[in-house]
């Protein structure tokens, strides 16, 4: 098995307060409990996609809004304004005058990726474990959760997903695809409730 875990690029961690202080004893359950405490939040993001077809990575940035358990809004400001609202099983993407509504169920691969992010934000271990094998590294101050797809179809597309964070907050999401394409989203928290 040639499954070398790549080093996650530096994740900037910002936090307001720390609920769990013992850095040594972090396990998945405790991480999830901590994450689940965050009911809503707002953050800024910078996302880079490395796509083989393109000569250089494409970069986008904007803001994220999350409210538990399953609403996530990604408001891209650059390079083109776009908003993506994820609510339950539907996605609405608005770009300029165009508005697309998609059902997650029609795009299982996309759904799995989105659920990995939502599941982590919601601290829903059960949901995550339906699609992924989880492993945790690090302590409360800096942790990295690795998700390996269980489903064969997913395995053909996604190599792994790595979500890093500090305390109850997610600071980066990295998605590595089997075809070598990769995306890395860095997240900086603005407010949380």
């Amino acid at each position: 098995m040639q499954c070398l875990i790549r080093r996650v690029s530096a994740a900037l961690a910002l936090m307001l307060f720390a609920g769990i202080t013992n850095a040594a004893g972090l396990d998945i359950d405790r991480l999830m409990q901590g994450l689940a405490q965050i009911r809503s939040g707002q953050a800024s993001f910078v996302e880079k996609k490395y796509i083989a077809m393109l000569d250089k990575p494409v970069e986008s940035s904007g803001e994220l809004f999350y409210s538990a358990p399953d609403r996530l809004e990604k408001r891209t400001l650059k390079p083109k304004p776009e908003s993506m609202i994820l609510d339950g099983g539907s996605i609405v993407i608005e770009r300029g005058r165009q508005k697309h509504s998609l059902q997650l169920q029609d795009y299982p691969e996309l759904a799995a990726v989105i659920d990995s992010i939502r599941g982590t934000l919601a601290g829903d271990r059960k949901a995550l474990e339906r699609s992924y094998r989880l492993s945790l590294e690090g302590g409360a101050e800096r942790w990295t959760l690795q998700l390996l797809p269980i489903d064969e179809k997913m395995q053909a597309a996604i190599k792994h997903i790595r979500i890093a964070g500090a305390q109850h907050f997610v600071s980066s999401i990295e998605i590595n695809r089997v075809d070598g394409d990769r995306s890395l989203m860095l997240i900086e928290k603005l407010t949380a409730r």
Partner: protein
Amino acid sequence: MRVTSARAAIILWLAFVISCGIIISRSQFTTDLSAFFPRNPTPAQQMLLDQIRDGLASRLILVGIEGADAQVRATLSKQMALSLRANSAFVSINNGEPVNAARDQAFLFDHRYRLSPAVTPERFSVEGLHAALEDSIDLLSSSAGLLVKSLLPSDPTGEMVQLLSQFNSSSRPRMINGAWASRDGARALMMVQTRATGADIDAQEYAMRMIRKAFEAASAATPAAKLVMTGPGVFSVTSRDTITSQVSRLSVLSFLLIAILLLLVYRSFMALALGFLPVVTGVVAGIAAVSLGFGAVHGITLGFGTALIGEAVDYSIYLFVQSGRGSADRQHWIRQFWPTIRLGVLTSLCGFSALLLSGFPGLAQLGLYSIAGLVAAAAVTRFVLPHLLPENFRIRDVSATGVVLSRLLRRAAAFRLAAVMLLLVSCAILVWHRGDLWNDKISSLSPVSRAEVELDTKLRADAGAPDVRYLVVVSGASQEVALLSAEKASAILQIQVDQGALAGFESPSRYLPSMATQRARLASLPPPDVLEARLAQAVQGLPVRAKLFTPFLSDAATARVQPMLQADHLEQTSMGMAVAALLIQRNGHWSALMPLTAPKGADINAARIQTALQAANLTDVLFVDMKVESDRLYSGYLHEAIVLSLGGVLAIFGLLLLVFRSFARAARIIVPLLAAIITVIAGLALLGQQLIILHLVGLLLVAAVGSNYALFFDRAERLNAPAIEPGTLTSMLFANLTTVAGFGLLAFSSVPILQAMGVTVAPGVILALIYSAIFARQSDAH
């Protein structure tokens, strides 16, 4: 001489009954909505009727699986779908399994340059390509980038994204364990499209049976799981079952009840059997007349026949009770009483003739049925029955009852003030309730129970099934003309969508563009060498190399020489089903249906859409609001029926005037009837029951039956008798009781149209008798 005329009458009667029987045996019986279809529909009504009969929505059966656990429900859904898909009775079985997805996507992809509205000459210029490529690369960086990445080399202008988002715009149910489920997750969902139209009730019943069979035969079946079904076809089937079972049960019950009542009075089975002869003759004559006049007999009419038993039996009661015994007495009866009864029959005919003129075929059927039934029953009583009675025929002596009644009647005058008061109060109630007296919603006629409607609403919301209330219909002499018009209308509707006045709309031209549009789109694609050169220029300044798009160049070249997209290319795809439902050919005329979806949380502003369509000056465009249209249709019937009924009452009055040549006398007959009608309406208003069209029929019946009572009282006055004969009184009481028994049962029916007649006629005839008695004494006192 007398014997031969008697024999002739009997033979004629027998021949009549037998020929009626033959007609009935060849008759067609219906319970569908055809009774509510107008004879001369407007184009909008015609569209409504077509949709009700065989439109897209009429073929939809929504299936829900409840109980057990989510896994079992989903498995059941998949097993049922598998077996139903093999059944040719169904066009499609949709439970969220991706059975068509691959074919659908292949179809859209293969024909993207003919289907995408974004394909224009500008889009394939250097600038256009550059802009489209820039967009596509931006899209890669976006959240949906994952979806479009693999498409980029062959579809750099993003036509597929365009098409997919168009096609997936409707809301769909959530998935649980690989099958559709309700929003709360408690029910698995399936949308079934039948091949047969919704109006083909037998086929719908078969479809329901097949669905139930598939459910029971599924290996995952457990007693904990429950199957529910709804949809227009299901409603038709359950309505038919309800009407059929209630009509047959009520017929048997009212027959038994009246038989018991008559046995108590007559104490003679012979009298009972003979008494029913006019009834049976009336019923068969009524059914045969409707069958001949309308081609088919509706279930409502049969239900009405049940009730008519209670009225037709009156004639034989009058004969038996009033004529005493012996043939001489019967000749006396014919001389003395028959003219009064004949006048009663004539007044009834005046009332029911009004119904014949109704544009509402259901009502016209009832009118014809009543006329034929009453004439036959009265004629048999007058011309056949006296000959059939044995020489020594007699019923129990009921004069004791008559004496009691006479005594009661003498005190009736004391109630005159009370009766006037009651009438005044009733009038006041009518004035008070004048605004909400009538229910002009067509749903008020439906025998579908509230629970069933609730289930339908719930499943429909869960499934995101269209309710097809608003339709834009464009038509033309050919498919091409209809599709061209649909494209023009689409452009206007799209503006309304952009402005937020609509959430969306459907159009067959979306999946099957007109030939003209297809040609125009293909002409937008430049020849391969030109496209290649433009593309090389277009990629400048973008992080992609032109080489990447080799698949695009070859696809564009192929598209230019592809044959025109025809309806049969759509076969076996979801789009094909949509086109089949939305593009209709009838009598060489093509119509394209464009259902509109209201914006979330708001209603469609019909006037605004209509104005927009009119402003575009399109020909043969129709905006149909199905609900308003059907309610308008029915309320039109209702108002017409009200006018006709008033006309019927006027006709009765006119007839009485003509016969009596005395306004006062005619008024004395008509006033108790009107009083009874007003009191009944007031009572219903007080009980909160809004009147539907069948209440009106009931009121006409009250006038018809009541006129007999009023005429008997009038006859007594005219003879200058000290009082009405006890025998006549007794016969009126018995006739009244049988009518109440026959119609009273209907009041307990759960079918609104039967219940309406029951609650009107039963109290109405009692009131008519009482009012006649009370008001009759007034002139007697002179």
